[in-house]
């Protein structure tokens, strides 16, 4: 089983040179730490920054410079600043190559639920609905099962939907899976120490297994 850092490290392997990437709050934010130095990417923050740098040193902290998680950040050489309207303009027009975000549930046809739990205080969808509606490529970082063992990879989402047919790949604590265009979770890799059988038991939606499933290399 992978911990959060393991999931982030595995997702970092999906990052290709020259990509513009939007990282959601939580595990996705951690991905930035594991992108190899020889790969040039630009991180987009939907509150109006292209070229997010590392978190600041004490003397670099600037209240006017935060990411979408409201954390203080720095800028990289070549950064650009813009308004929220321009930011979502570039998101909607497909200029962001890769979007990485968390999910509470994903369905076998790529629907995602990650903003609302009935009965709990609803904090809002923030930019998630805009991102999932427009992203060219979405990778979801998530736990395969809830704390009580229920699968979060489902035939159909039970929670209110954030977006339809948008997730392309899932990296969970147990596996890497593609979501096929015709529907279904195609198992690609197992987490270290996790068996195909365990993944089968943990996946409620349609799981597709073809040939030998190798263990992740992280």
């Amino acid at each position, binding site marked *: 089983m992978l911990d959060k850092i393991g999931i982030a490290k595995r997702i970092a392997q999906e990052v290709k040179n020259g990509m513009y990437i939007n990282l959601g709050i939580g595990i996705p934010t951690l991905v930035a730490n594991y992108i190899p130095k020889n790969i040039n990417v630009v991180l987009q923050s939907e509150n*109006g920054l292209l070229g997010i740098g590392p978190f600041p040193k004490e003397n670099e902290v600037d*209240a006017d*410079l935060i990411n979408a998680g409201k954390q*203080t950040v720095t800028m990289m050489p070549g950064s650009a600043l813009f308004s929220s309207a321009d930011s*979502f303009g570039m998101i909607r027009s497909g200029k962001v190559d890769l979007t990485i975000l968390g999910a509470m549930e994903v369905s076998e046809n790529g629907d995602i639920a990650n903003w609302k739990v009935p009965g709990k205080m609803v904090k809002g969808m923030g930019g998630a609905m*805009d991102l999932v509606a427009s992203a060219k490529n979405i990778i979801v970082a998530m736990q395969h099962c809830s704390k009580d063992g229920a699968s979060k990879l489902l035939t159909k989402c039970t929670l209110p939907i954030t977006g339809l047919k948008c997730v392309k790949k899932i990296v969970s604590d147990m596996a890497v899976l593609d979501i096929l265009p015709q529907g279904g979770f195609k198992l690609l890799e197992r987490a270290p120490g996790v068996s195909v059988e365990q993944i089968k038991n943990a996946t409620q939606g349609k799981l597709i297994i073809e040939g030998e499933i190798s263990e992740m290399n992280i």
Partner: protein
Amino acid sequence: MIDKRVKDADEAVRDIADNSTLMIGGFGLCGIPENTISALLKKGVKGLTCISNNAGVDDFGIGLLLKTRQVKKMISSYVGENEEFERQLLHGELEVELIPQGTLAERCRAGGAGIPAFFTPAGVGTEVAEGKETRVFNGKTYLMEQWLRADFSIVKAWKGDHSGNLMYRGTARNFNPMMATAGSITIAEVEELVPVGELNPNEIHTPGIFVHRIFQGKNYEKRIEQRTLTKI
């Protein structure tokens, strides 16, 4: 040159009446109009509808106006980080309308650009789409969303000149430029107010035509919500 200066925040909010609709710039606590929020608190105007991406925290930003029960309704994309907000909402003392962040930004932009409605993919198939017209363009489904406008837009900029031209700094720009365009009256507070001619016309983010009142704010706290440092 048309002089838009007012003395201070109190003068800027002089005619904001109960039950007004306000747009308030900022993302989290970044780029919020601190002085004008304080003046609204002092004035005690009630029944406000606030269009703002977030609702501040318990003791800062719009959170201050929530505590004094001056806000009737919030129109936002994300309203976490605020216990008083949660309490009022659960007790039915506060209305909330949640809008996807990009749609909120674009609806404000549309309000200031004379575009009464537009189509966006955000929210298709979700509860956001309930009751809204959908339409397919190039095989993809979109929702029709309408403009947002406000009686007063309240924005915070870094520098401004006497005629209302504004420049923002860093990610404190966020919703401020669109909101500045969408108010019947737009109030701008700035960290540095300079005479006309001192800003480079190429570098102005909000042209003064959109701004009706401008003043230099003071004692900016610029509170940080998540002070996150690099680990070295």
